[in-house]
């Protein structure tokens, strides 16, 4: 008896897996001077993975479910797979010049990156606890290693170990929760859990299981108080890896949260809604306040990304106090925010890579006057940071708007309070985002700046491409939100709204 496998539905995963193996093989046989081929193959492979996604999106079969509903390719999965492939593509582009410039292991780097992307793509389709768990592990484990990829750098070592230890702890908590979910409901598929778990929302064991799982996912999305690894790891890890951690890895955490909370625990929204409310409020406030005092740009972005995670969690909290339509709306709001956030944050990290090359430092002070000798980078920095701050008409503003809409639409006093907290935090965030832009444009060039030749050296082509693609999306989606909302609206079916 062979399992019924829909190979078209699995085509993106297969493409990525084959690419990864090819990259590994190439790395084995290529001489050192030819290693760049691994990068080319990796980038091409990720692009090819988009083709079956498009084929699936236009095919007539609405929803492809296999293996007893534990692996489903529906609109939600397609949209998120698309996001993972595109952001993976951008991260690979950002990696090329960065990885080449030092004595890094290129072939293994791209292999591990592809593994992690593969994990996230599998994750988007996972609809049972085991597949979900394995997919999350495949996303994370390569990242534990890649965070330490600058082997000789003590900070990178430390980043790796901190991420690893806390990651494993989070996995253990999540697994403990999952084991109880299985024990209580006797089901592994999310649909089965939703059915069997209905009416259990008051059971302390059920609450414990649910909250432990949220803690595990909260680690991935770096929500306070599970965020502690993020600033240290972001600072120490190679910057493209950080970009991946703050976007794809975080998005993977959100995908897990979305599918688990909305499709496995819809009846327990009264538990996870308030829990996420607390996480959201804490994340926004604590991270924004701390970000005010940061002097390192990557660390600033780390706290910014924790705060952004808080914003993304807001609609979850709204879901608890709303009806079925509002549930779908909250779901779509989170997806919209994730998609927009992915592009603006990747753009911001691409700017950081380009800017750090030119200024020779990650200290914000050292970036003074960057706008005068690299106006292009300066403008892009302005676009991405203001987008993160939610200034219209950049895409980040749509994200904020959607988030506010979901919060206010729920109509309960608690949600209005959370919306107010979010609003205050949006203003606090403006302080540190605008400060970076101000430094870039309005401060004098510091004496420690590198010489003319370094400052005016051109940006690597691949990095330029990544910057260009992200800025196009960030600007275009600001004017035409449909570019994003068309996709996120398609996903809301998962929440039944």
């Amino acid at each position: 008896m062979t399992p019924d496998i829909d190979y078209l539905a699995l085509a993106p995963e297969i493409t990525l897996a084959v690419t990864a193996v090819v990259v590994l093989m190439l790395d084995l046989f290529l001489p050192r001077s030819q290693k760049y081929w691994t990068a080319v193959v990796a980038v091409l492979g990720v692009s090819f993975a988009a083709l079956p996604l498009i084929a699936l999106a236009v095919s007539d079969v609405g929803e492809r479910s296999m293996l007893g509903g534990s692996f489903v390719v529906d609109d939600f999965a397609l949209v998120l797979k698309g996001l993972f492939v595109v952001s993976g593509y951008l991260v690979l582009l950002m990696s090329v010049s960065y990885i080449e410039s030092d004595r890094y292991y290129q072939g293994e780097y791209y292999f591990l990156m592809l593994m992690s992307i593969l994990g996230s793509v599998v994750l988007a389709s996972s609809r049972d606890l085991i597949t979900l768990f394995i997919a999350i592990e495949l996303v994370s484990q390569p990242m534990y290693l890649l965070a330490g990829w600058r082997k000789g750098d003590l900070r990178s070592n430390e980043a790796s170990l901190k991420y690893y230890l806390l990651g494993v702890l989070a996995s253990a908590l999540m697994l403990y929760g999952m084991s109880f979910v299985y024990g209580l409901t006797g089901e592994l598929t999310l649909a089965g859990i939703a059915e069997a778990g209905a009416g259990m929302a008051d059971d302390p064991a059920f609450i414990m299981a649910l909250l432990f799982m949220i803690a595990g996912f909260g680690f991935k999305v770096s929500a306070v108080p599970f965020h502690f690894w993020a600033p240290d790891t972001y600072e120490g890890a190679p910057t493209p890896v950080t970009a991946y951690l703050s976007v794809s890895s975080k998005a993977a955490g959100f995908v897990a949260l979305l599918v688990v909370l909305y499709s496995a625990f819809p009846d327990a929204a009264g538990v996870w809604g308030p829990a996420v409310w607390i996480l959201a409020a804490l994340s926004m406030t604590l991270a924004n306040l701390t970000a005010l005092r940061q002097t390192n740009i990557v660390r600033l972005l780390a706290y910014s990304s924790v705060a952004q995670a808080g914003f993304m969690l807001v609609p979850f909290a709204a879901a608890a106090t709303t009806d079925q339509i509002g549930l779908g709306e909250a779901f779509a709001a989170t997806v919209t925010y994730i998609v927009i956030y992915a592009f603006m944050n990747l753009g911001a990290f691409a700017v950081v890579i380009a800017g750090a090359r030119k200024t020779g430092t990650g200290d914000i002070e050292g970036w003074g006057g960057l706008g005068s000798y690299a106006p292009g980078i300066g403008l892009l920095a302005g676009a991405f940071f203001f987008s993160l701050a939610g200034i219209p008409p950049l895409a980040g503003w749509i994200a904020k708007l959607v988030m506010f809409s979901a919060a206010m639409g729920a109509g309960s006093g608690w949600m209005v309070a959370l919306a107010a907290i979010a609003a205050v935090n949006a203003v606090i965030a403006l302080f540190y985002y605008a400060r970076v832009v101000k430094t870039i444009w309005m401060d004098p060039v510091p004496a420690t700046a590198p010489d003319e030749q370094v400052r005016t050296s051109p940006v690597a082509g691949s990095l330029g491409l990544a910057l260009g693609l992200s800025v196009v999306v960030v600007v275009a989606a600001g004017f035409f939100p449909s570019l994003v909302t068309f996709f996120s609206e398609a996903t809301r079916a998962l929440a039944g709204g």
Partner: protein
Amino acid sequence: MLLNQFLILGALLFSLGIYGLLVRRNAVMVLLSIELMLNAVNVNLVAFEAFLQNANVGGQIFAIFVITVAAAEVGVGLAIILMIFRNRTSANIDELDLMKW
């Protein structure tokens, strides 16, 4: 047999693992504690499986996956510890605080 006699043993293992994770200075010993925690999950899963008697033996399958992943995790963890040891000639994790605030 009671189901709970296994679950409480699992809870005990899990808590001891957490205690070890928080209190051990040596990185290898922290890894040992993590193994305790994952093992607690396995105890839970197998006990639940025995209790539920599911046809698809999901609990046991889950436990197998956990064991596999735990093995991979140990490999990754030891690699990281080795790398750090090479740079600092110490595997004490409380000495790692270059990055803070």
